[in-house]
């Protein structure tokens, strides 16, 4: 009974967090991408002095402002959820996240109070140069603001630059630079922000394609498409490059996630990358069933991706769960044993401190230190619990990669045809252009699903599972707030879409 209630609570808390994060992530990538596109458009206006570029800039800036206004502060709810639903986790990471989140808050506040105001109030009130400078500062500042959130997320995926303080029951930062420049944090920042540039570009192409289909604002639409498809193409290629880096860091730091998103159950040398595949739904860890109903593999590519070496061995889910002595891989079963020792010694340390037995406390702490890297595994009941939901992770990853490849083609074709002034007759392509925004959102959200579902069951990789990170509260209250947020977010989303569509219908000013 206790077990069922606990799992139900964790799952509702997870669902609530996923709902909030995915809603928040509708607005953030558009802000990141559109802010730079506005800066590009305005730079061309300032350089050429042509009125049509000014009109065009103000139009996209208006849509950027709508997106920003509806999206602003939705991320704060995530912080509330930490304190209410994930209080143990929140306490344990408070010292690590305090600095990055405080910097994020300060950057956002000063940015919004100064440059944002100039960007929207400053037309004809400040010089062209200062206005352009403000627009660039908003773009750079918004993206830097994202850095600190992604550094915090990167730390959860690869906890580094910290030490566990058993007297305060929390992780404490030992080296800020290790946290900031951790390979996972850098990979997260570059991959995530560039995916935002891609989505912003798709937004501009989508709206512009609609104008061309309707035969409205044709000159503005074509000008916008040229800039957006160029930026989008470069961003999409960079997303591919950073995605490769993200997969490499996953292979090194979170091999279970890599095995899950590739559906790799048995480790292989010269492992192939699944280009297309359908997973066998009843496949479980340790069984001998074929993991795929159907698959097409590219030989050797997964080994190259994971280890930068085509013939190398890539561990599968079974290797990571049950261990592989030949390859020197410790399984989750062995890690659970060590994790339980870590918890036992932590309990012994606590008790020794309570009764004032310093020698016993030091002895327990030494034993704890020897096993603390496996602390989180001690809370698992079975090694199979270390496996994330494979199907969700696998399909999300492959949807993201397939769409990312499609976007490269879309940007390239739009760029070439618009430069040759042949885009207007391409009705099917323009329809794809309109649709591409929705595909972009699917790819963008799928990326987060891979990152977050793929690292389950961990709130902090290997150190704290979600079952221990949660607060022991009534599941009914989490359900209530879940549906409350669902209604609030739906209303806000309808408001966003409604206002956005109205402004798109109105079109650029002066027309």
């Amino acid at each position: 009974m206790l077990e069922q209630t606990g799992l139900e609570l964790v799952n509702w808390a997870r669902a609530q967090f996923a709902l909030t994060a995915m809603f928040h992530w509708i607005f953030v990538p558009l802000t990141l991408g559109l802010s730079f596109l506005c800066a590009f458009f305005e730079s061309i206006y300032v350089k050429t002095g042509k009125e049509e570029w000014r009109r065009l800039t103000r139009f996209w800036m208006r849509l950027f402002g709508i997106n920003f206004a509806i999206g602003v502060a939705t991320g704060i709810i995530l912080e509330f959820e930490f304190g209410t639903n994930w209080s143990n986790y929140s306490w344990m990471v408070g010292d690590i996240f305090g600095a990055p989140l405080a910097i994020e808050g300060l950057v956002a506040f000063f940015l919004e109070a100064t440059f944002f105001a100039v960007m929207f109030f400053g037309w004809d009130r400040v010089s062209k140069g200062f206005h352009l400078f403000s627009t660039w500062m908003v773009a750079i500042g918004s993206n830097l603001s994202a850095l600190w959130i992604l550094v915090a997320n990167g730390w959860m995926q690869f906890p580094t630059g910290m030490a566990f303080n058993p007297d305060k029951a929390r992780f404490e930062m030992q080296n800020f630079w290790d946290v900031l420049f951790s390979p996972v944090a850098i990979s997260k920042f570059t991959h995530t922000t560039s995916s935002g540039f891609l989505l912003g570009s798709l937004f501009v192409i989508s709206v512009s394609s609609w104008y061309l289909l309707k035969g409205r604002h044709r000159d503005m639409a074509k000008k916008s498409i040229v800039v957006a498809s160029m930026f989008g193409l470069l961003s999409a290629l960079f997303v591919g490059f950073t995605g490769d880096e993200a997969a490499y860091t996953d292979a090194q730091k979170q091999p279970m996630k890599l095995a899950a998103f590739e559906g790799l159950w048995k480790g292989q040398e010269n492992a192939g990358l699944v280009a297309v595949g359908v997973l066998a739904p009843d496949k479980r860890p340790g069984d001998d069933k074929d993991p795929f109903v159907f698959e097409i593999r590219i030989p050797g590519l997964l080994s190259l991706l994971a280890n930068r070496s085509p013939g190398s061995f890539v561990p599968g889910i079974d290797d990571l769960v049950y261990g592989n002595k030949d390859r020197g891989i410790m399984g989750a079963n062995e890690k659970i044993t060590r994790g339980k020792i870590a918890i036992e010694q932590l309990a012994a340390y606590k008790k020794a401190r309570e009764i004032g037995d310093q020698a016993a406390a030091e002895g327990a702490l030494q034993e704890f230190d020897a096993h603390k890297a496996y602390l989180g595994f001690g809370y698992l009941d079975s090694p199979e619990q270390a496996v994330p939901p494979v199907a969700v992770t696998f399909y999300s990853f492959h949807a993201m990669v397939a769409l990312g490849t499609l976007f490269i083609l879309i940007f390239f074709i739009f760029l070439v045809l618009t430069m040759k002034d042949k885009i207007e007759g391409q009705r099917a392509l323009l329809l794809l252009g309109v649709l591409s925004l929705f595909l972009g959102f699917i790819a963008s959200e799928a990326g987060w699903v891979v990152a977050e579902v793929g690292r389950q069951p961990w709130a902090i990789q290997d150190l704290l599972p979600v079952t221990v990170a949660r607060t022991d509260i009534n599941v009914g209250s989490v359900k209530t707030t879940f549906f409350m947020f669902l209604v609030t977010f739906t209303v806000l989303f309808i408001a966003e879409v409604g206002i956005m569509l109205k402004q798109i219908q109105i079109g650029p000013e002066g027309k």
Partner: protein
Amino acid sequence: MSLSPRKIMDFYVNGFRSMTLGKTLWKIILIKLIIIFAVIKFFFMPDYLHTRFNTDTERAQHVMNVITRAHGPGGKNLIP
């Protein structure tokens, strides 16, 4: 352009006055902030450790109890 406090104030006041679409957006932002802070935060999403405990020592003790309690007799996990 000299940046006197008066001019900065005028810049913001005139900016807010001349808003059209911005007025609607500000209304949405204000309603949203009221819902988030005055309703959601206040009534539904309290900070568990801050409402239950008065000091950081108590909070640390509580979390320590949770993370060590998980290892029950014979290695049986008490937390699912």
